[in-house]
C-alpha cells in the first residue's frame, strides 16, 4: 500500500468547506462567479465538487464508509483538471488528493475496472525520423493521446525548424494507468520506459501531448534526460500564415495548471499571424474541456460547450488548443451548439 494514511488525513483535514473550489474565486474575476468544476457543474450535488470528494475520502480512510457504485462514480467523475486546487485558498493543499487517494484504494480493492474505461493505448505508428543517430527522441505515444496524422504534422514542423530527432515509438507513458490510480502498473511502465530511454541513449525527450508531457516531466524520474514540449522547439521559428483572424486559446489543464505553460502557445499563435483575444476563463482559471478518453462524455460535453460559449463571447473566429483530444472534443461541442467557431489543434496549424 503506497498511501500514507495519517499524512493524507492530515492534508484532507485542511479543507475548510468554504466552497471556493466551485467557482473562479480569484480576485478580481471572482465577481464573475463562473463555474469551474466540470463534474460539480454537471451533477450539482456537493459530492461531485472537490469539497464533497474530500469528505468522502476522509470517511473512506477512517473506515466510516466503504466504496459502492455511487462513491466510485464520484471518484471517477473527477476530471483531475486542477481547477479546484487553483481556487482553493488553503496554502499547500491540493484537494485533488481526495480523488487520487480514493482511486488508488479502488484499484487496490479491485473495484476500479468496473467503472474506469481504460482508453486504447495501442502505440501510434510513426514514420517520422528526422535524423537517425540523434540523442533527441520524439515520444510518439499511443492512440489514447493522439493519432498518426497529428504526430506527422508535429514531426514535419520540427523538421522544418531544423530539429534533429528520432522517434521513440511503441510505448505508452502510462498516463491513463496513473489517472486510474493503478500505481503498480504505472510504475512498471515507467520503469520499462526509463530503461528503454537509457538503452536508446536518449538525452532529450520531446513530448507532443500535454498529458504525456506532464507525466514524463513530473511523474518520471529521468536523470540525465531533459523533457521538453514540442512547442518549445518551435518558438521563434514560426512564420505568419494568416492575418486579421481573431483567435482565442484554450489552455489544456495538463499544460497550463499542471505545468504553468501559458505564454508559449500564445506566442506561437501570435507568430502565426492571429489576433489573440482572451476568454473570460483563461490561463490558471481555464475551464477544463473534460477531453479525456477515460472521462464521462456528457460531462465533457457540458464543459466544452461552456468553453465554446466563452470563445464566442470573446469574439473569436478560431479556437485554438493543444492536443488532439481537446481539439476533437471542442469541435464536437461547437457543432452541437451550431457555433461558427472553427476549432484547431495548434499542431495542425504549423
Amino acid at each position, binding site marked *: 500500500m503506497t498511501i500514507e494514511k495519517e499524512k493524507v*488525513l*492530515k492534508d*484532507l*483535514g*485542511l*479543507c*475548510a*468547506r*468554504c*466552497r*471556493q473550489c*466551485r*467557482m473562479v*474565486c*480569484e*480576485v*478580481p474575476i*471572482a*465577481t*464573475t*462567479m463562473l463555474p469551474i468544476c466540470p463534474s460539480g457543474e454537471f*451533477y*450539482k*450535488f*456537493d*459530492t461531485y465538487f472537490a*469539497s*464533497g*470528494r474530500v*469528505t*468522502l475520502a*476522509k*470517511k473512506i480512510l*477512517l473506515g*466510516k*464508509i466503504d466504496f*459502492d457504485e*455511487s*462513491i466510485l*462514480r*464520484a471518484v471517477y467523475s473527477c476530471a483531475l483538471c486542477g481547477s479546484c486546487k487553483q481556487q482553493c*485558498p*488553503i*496554502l*499547500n493543499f491540493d484537494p485533488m488528493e481526495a480523488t487520487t487517494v480514493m482511486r488508488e484504494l479502488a484499484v487496490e480493492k479491485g473495484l476500479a475496472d468496473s467503472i474506469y474505461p481504460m482508453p486504447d493505448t495501442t502505440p501510434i505508428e510513426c514514420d517520422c525520423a528526422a535524423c537517425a543517430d540523434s540523442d533527441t527522441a520524439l515520444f510518439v505515444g499511443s492512440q489514447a493521446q493522439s493519432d498518426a496524422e497529428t504526430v506527422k504534422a508535429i514531426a514535419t514542423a520540427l523538421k522544418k525548424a531544423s530539429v534533429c530527432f528520432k522517434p521513440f515509438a511503441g510505448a505508452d507513458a502510462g498516463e491513463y494507468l496513473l489517472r486510474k490510480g493503478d500505481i503498480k502498473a504505472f510504475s512498471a511502465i515507467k520503469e520499462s520506459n526509463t530503461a528503454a530511454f537509457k538503452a536508446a541513449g536518449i538525452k532529450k525527450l520531446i513530448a507532443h501531448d500535454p498529458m504525456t508531457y506532464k507525466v514524463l516531466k513530473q511523474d518520471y524520474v529521468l536523470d540525465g534526460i531533459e523533457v521538453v514540449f514540442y512547442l518549445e522547439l518551435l518558438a521563434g521559428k514560426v512564420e505568419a500564415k494568416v492575418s486579421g483572424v481573431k483567435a482565442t486559446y484554450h489552455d489544456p489543464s495538463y499544460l497550463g495548471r499542471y505545468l504553468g505553460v501559458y505564454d508559449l502557445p500564445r506566442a506561437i499563435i501570435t507568430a502565426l499571424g492571429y489576433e489573440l483575444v482572451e476568454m473570460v476563463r483563461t490561463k490558471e482559471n481555464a475551464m477544463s474541456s473534460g477531453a479525456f478518453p477515460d472521462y464521462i462524455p456528457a460531462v465533457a460535453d457540458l464543459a466544452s460547450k461552456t468553453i465554446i460559449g466563452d470563445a464566442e463571447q470573446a469574439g473569436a473566429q478560431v479556437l485554438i488548443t493543444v492536443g488532439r483530444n481537446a481539439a476533437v472534443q471542442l469541435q464536437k461541442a461547437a457543432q452541437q451548439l451550431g457555433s461558427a467557431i472553427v476549432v484547431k489543434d495548434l499542431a495542425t496549424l504549423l
Partner: protein
Amino acid sequence: MDFAERFISIVGKKHFSTELAVIEAYRDTLFPVDPEEPFGVIMPETTEQVVDIVKLCNEIEMPIVPIAVGAPINGMNLPVKNGLVMDMSRMNKIHDIDPDTMVAVIEPGVTIGQMIKALEPYNLMTSYPNSSPPVSVLANIIFLKGSGQHITKYGTADYYLQGVEAVLGTGEIMKTGSGALDSSDWHFRYCLGPDLSGLFIGSLGTMGIVTKAAVKLAPICPYTWSVALGFDKIGDAVKPINYIGKMKMADYINGQYWYTGVSADTDYPWEVTGGKAALPLDYMDKWRESKGLTPVWFHLAIEGIDEREVAVRRQMLEEYIDGLGIKRLDMSNDSWYHVRDTQIQGTISSVAARFCRHRGGGWSSLVFIAPVKKWGEILDPVIEMGRKYGFDPTYLLKVFGPYAHTSQCRFVLSYNKSDPDERARAKKFTQEFTQHAVANGGVIHRQTLQPGVVMAHQPEYYALLKQLKKIVDPKCILNRGVLGLVPEDQE
C-alpha cells in the same frame, strides 16, 4: 410509490438522491459534532417545487434541513436522522434589480460573487460578509444576522431585508413586507401590523424555507480613508472606540488580535504551530513585536460618495484621535492591510479567504453580542478559558451601527478535528464560552447547539418562540436540529 419516487416526481431523478456518496458528502461539518444520517438530498429549482416537497414532508413527517450553499461554521445546517437535506443552490435567480427603489429580489442560492457582478453596472452593493464568494447572500442577511462591511454604518446584515417569500412548514406560501400586497412591490419592509419579516431573521430555517427575498441596495462609496489605531490593552480602547462609533466618525470599526495579519502573511511559517491547529498567541506576539505593533489594534475606515464627505469626517476623526494621543500604526508596507482596506467597498477580499487557513479541519467561530463597554469584563476571561482548554482563541471585535449600540465579539477557534481529545476540549470550551457570555449579558449569536444555556435565562421568551414555531410549522419539520424549538412531545 415510495418516498424517494415521490421526491423524484417533484424535482426529477437528477436532483434527488439517497445514494451513499451524496448522503455522506452532506454529512460533514467543521463543528465538533458528527452529523446524523439523512434520508436523502434534494435540490429544488422553483418555489412550486419547494411547496410540493414541504407538503410531502409534512404528510410523512420527514424533517427538512435547508442549506443555501453550505459553508457554515457553527453547525447551523446539520442533517437530521432520516430527514431531508434541501440544497437550495439551484435556486439562484436574480429576479429584479431596481436602482430607483434601491431593492433587488433574489433567490437563496444567489451568491456573493454573483450579486457583486450583477450590481456592478449600477455601482450598488448589498450586504456581503467577509466570506468566500460562493456563499449565499440571503443566508447571511436573513438567517445569520450577518456582519458585512457595513456593520458599523447600518448594523447587522438584516438591515438590508425588505421582505421575504417563504414556504411555511405546512407548505403554505407567506409573503412579508409591502411585497405581500398583490398591488405592491417590495419598497417597504413592513406591511400591516408587526414586522413579519423579522420572523425569519436569525431563524436558521426553522420558521420557513425562504424561496425569494427583497434586499436593500446601497451605493458603493468610492472614496475611503482608513487608519489603524494601536492600544496596549482592550480596556484602553473601550471609551474612545465607543465615542467614535456613537458620533458616527467612522463607517467601519473592527478591532482584533493579529490573527488576520499573521494568517495573511504569506511568509507565515506553519512549523511554529508545532502541529497544533491554531495560530499560537505567543507566535503572534513575536510577529507583531518584530513589526513594532501594539497588542491590540483597530481598523477604522470612512467612506464617502465624494472626496469632500471623506475629508470633513476625516478631520473630525483625526482631531479626536490626536487630541487623546492615541497611537497610529503605520502599516503602509503591509500589503494585506491594503487588501483589507478595500473590503468596505464591497469587494471580495483575498484576506477573507485566509480566515480559513488553519490546520486540522476544525474551525468554529464563537460569537456573542455585547455592548462595547462590556469588552473588558467579557473578553479577558475568554482568553484565559481558552488557554485552560489548550487553545489560543483569537478575537475580532466589530462595532455595530448606526450608533455603536452594541458590538460583535467573535472568537476564532481552530482545532484538529481528527484528534478526539482536541475535539472534546473544543466542545467543552464552546459550552463554557456560551455560559460565560450569557451570564454576562451577552447574546449568543449563531450558537445553535446549546439552546438550553440560553433557555435557562429566558424561559418565557423561549416558550413564546416555541408557540410561534408551532403556528408556522406544526409538525416541527423545519431544521429541528437547531435553536431547540422542538416541542417535548415531538422530541
